[in-house]
């Protein structure tokens, strides 16, 4: 009975309490991430099978990718995730300033990642690696190489879309932290955004070997 008495601060009317709302929000975020696992999973499924059928083309295409930018980006995105993780832990203590700093730093690293990715894409397109009629490649199994680059753009573009959404969410956290909204009993938006931000990290961590390392 007591669960349904007048809601306290920060709880919407359908929830009994702030903790109730927090748990629901985090459960919702995890469920959303489960759908994302299946979404990217379908892409990896295609990647594994096509790679098996076109080992040569994928091998040759991997050699044309920019290993330096890819590796730097992997380091950047892992760092961004860990910086935000530190912010999450501070948020649980109700400290707004570290959250603000972490969000700004992490979001900034995210922007650097996106910038490098855009530069890498322009480089790739300059090398004729844009799928479709304009695609250029040398050597055997052009079909396989073409497929690699299609999967490359599909994977990286969808990842950058997620990154962009992530940067916006992180900026939103920074804005709320600047207003001093987080308290020891109200911090779940930081955790929820942190979950999403880490998941974007996980996606890249798994794209990286498939794009740059396998068969190099």
């Amino acid at each position: 009975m007591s669960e349904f008495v007048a809601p306290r601060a920060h709880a919407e009317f359908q929830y009994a309490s702030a903790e109730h709302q927090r748990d629901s929000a985090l459960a919702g975020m995890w469920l959303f991430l489960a759908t994302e696992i299946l979404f990217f999973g379908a892409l990896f499924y295609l990647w594994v099978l096509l790679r098996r059928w076109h080992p040569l083309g994928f091998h040759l295409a991997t050699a044309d990718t920019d290993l330096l930018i890819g590796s730097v980006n992997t380091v950047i995105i892992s760092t961004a995730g860990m910086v935000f993780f530190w912010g999450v832990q501070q948020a649980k203590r109700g400290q707004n300033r570290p959250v603000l700093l972490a969000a700004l730093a992490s979001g900034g690293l995210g922007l650097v990642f996106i910038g490098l990715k855009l530069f890498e894409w322009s480089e790739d397109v300059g090398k004729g690696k844009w799928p479709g009629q304009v695609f250029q490649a040398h050597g055997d199994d052009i079909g396989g190489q073409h497929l690699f680059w299609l999967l490359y753009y599909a994977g990286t573009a969808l990842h950058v879309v997620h990154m962009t959404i992530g940067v916006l969410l992180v900026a939103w956290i920074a804005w709320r932290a600047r207003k001093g909204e987080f308290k020891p009993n109200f911090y779940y938006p930081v955790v929820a955004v942190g979950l999403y931000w880490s998941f974007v990290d996980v996606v890249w961590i798994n794209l990286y070997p498939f794009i740059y390392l396998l068969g190099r």
Partner: protein
Amino acid sequence: MKALWSDPAVRTTLKTWLVLLALVAGELGAALLGAGIVAPFVGIAMAAIVFAIPMELPSAPNAAKIFALAGLFWLVVMLFGLGTLDPLTRHDQPTHFLSQP
């Protein structure tokens, strides 16, 4: 600085970060030495670390654990397990798809 280091939050974060960087360096090195085949497995290991530490899955509420495990189960057993049954046991007789560039 010392005060910062004594903060367990900072310690966990830094340690995890270093482990992740070491794994990146490891998979990169392996690939350059011609053992790129291990890289996806290193990727999976890194993903597991991110799930465990920054995403705090082990201490998450039960509902969250169920959802995350459902996602992984469906990915591994359904999509990759059953989904690769046909493609990997098929004996294709391709005609000449390479004829068109």
